[in-house]
């Protein structure tokens, strides 16, 4: 999932302060799962904003709405009426959702209420960890299902480095050494020997270093 964190309330208040009617728009998919922008977070943020502006003596109208996904037109349309009644939209979706809302509703400012952080998993309740860089050339099969690009601080394709200590990374003793995880996993699979093979440098043209990427499913095109 895409993992995001809500911005500080003071930053959000500054963002929306030029407007009087603001719609807090949630997204019921990734940001809901990571507790950043689902229906509950929308309700909490909207309530705080109403009270905070009231205390400042500002006459603000903060409304709430949540769609299933802000990155799909089919769901975005459901917010049309709510958006029409606002002067600005504070979107609690990831960066893709914010941009899609802005694309659909051209005449209204759309502001981000969260910082999109990474693609990851919920490792434990309330704890999210980064697992994928979206490099566009997945080699997880070579490394026993552990992404060394994302999880090794040095992004080593041929590891480990000399900084692995007791299964932890030298950059942070709380961070697992990705290469230790690879070795443990490949050992369990009986494939340790395959790690002896040299992996040549990666071709980064598939990453977004070459600009924004597109994926096309020809049979699905309208």
């Amino acid at each position, binding site marked *: 999932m895409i993992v995001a964190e809500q911005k500080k309330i*003071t930053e959000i208040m500054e963002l929306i302060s030029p407007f009087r009617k603001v719609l807090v728009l949630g997204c019921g998919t990734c940001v809901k799962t990571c507790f950043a922008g689902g229906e509950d977070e929308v309700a909490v943020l909207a309530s705080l904003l109403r009270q905070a502006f009231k205390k400042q003596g500002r006459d603000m109208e903060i409304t709430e709405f949540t769609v299933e996904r802000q990155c799909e037109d089919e769901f975005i349309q459901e917010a049309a009426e709510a958006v029409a009644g606002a002067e600005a939209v504070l979107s609690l979706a990831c960066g893709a959702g914010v941009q899609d809302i802005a694309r659909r509703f051209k005449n209204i400012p759309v502001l981000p209420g969260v910082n999109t952080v990474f693609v990851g998993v919920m490792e434990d309740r309330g704890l999210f960890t980064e697992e994928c860089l979206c490099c566009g050339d997945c080699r997880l099969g070579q490394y026993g299902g552990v992404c060394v690009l994302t999880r090794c601080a040095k992004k080593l394709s041929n590891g480990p480095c000399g900084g692995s200590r007791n299964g932890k990374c030298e950059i942070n003793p709380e961070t697992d050494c990705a290469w230790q995880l690879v070795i443990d996993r490949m050992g369990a699979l009986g494939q340790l020997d395959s790690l002896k093979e040299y992996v040549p440098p990666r071709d980064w043209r598939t990453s977004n270093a070459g600009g924004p990427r597109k994926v096309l499913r020809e049979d699905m095109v309208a």
Partner: protein
Amino acid sequence: MTDGKPAVSLFYCVNALSAQTARELENTAEFEIRPVHMACSSMVRDILLLKGFESGADLVVVATCPPGQCQFIDGNRRARRRVDRVRRLLDEAGLDGSRLIITDCGLELGSAGMLAELKSALNKQGPGVEI
């Protein structure tokens, strides 16, 4: 503030306050107390605490069981963590998080003790935002 009386939203676990204490608190003349009883204090959600303030409460109080006495094992700990988070959010928004109170002494204090606690908290804070 209701009719000049400080308003208090009281969310309490049914095992943390006796029904009699809750009734006595509800009928007190000094405060306008709105008690909400729950099967466990962990059922209180962030938004419920905030709605308490939004609907005019000067204080929002969560009454949990004492540590180690939650019949759902860690409901009181969860409630405390939630209260801590909402307090932080209130402070960040400039809304004085100390108006949100959590107590695990409800059974021990009884209604008189609880009222004394509320008075002391209110004297420190003053009335909240009128919505």
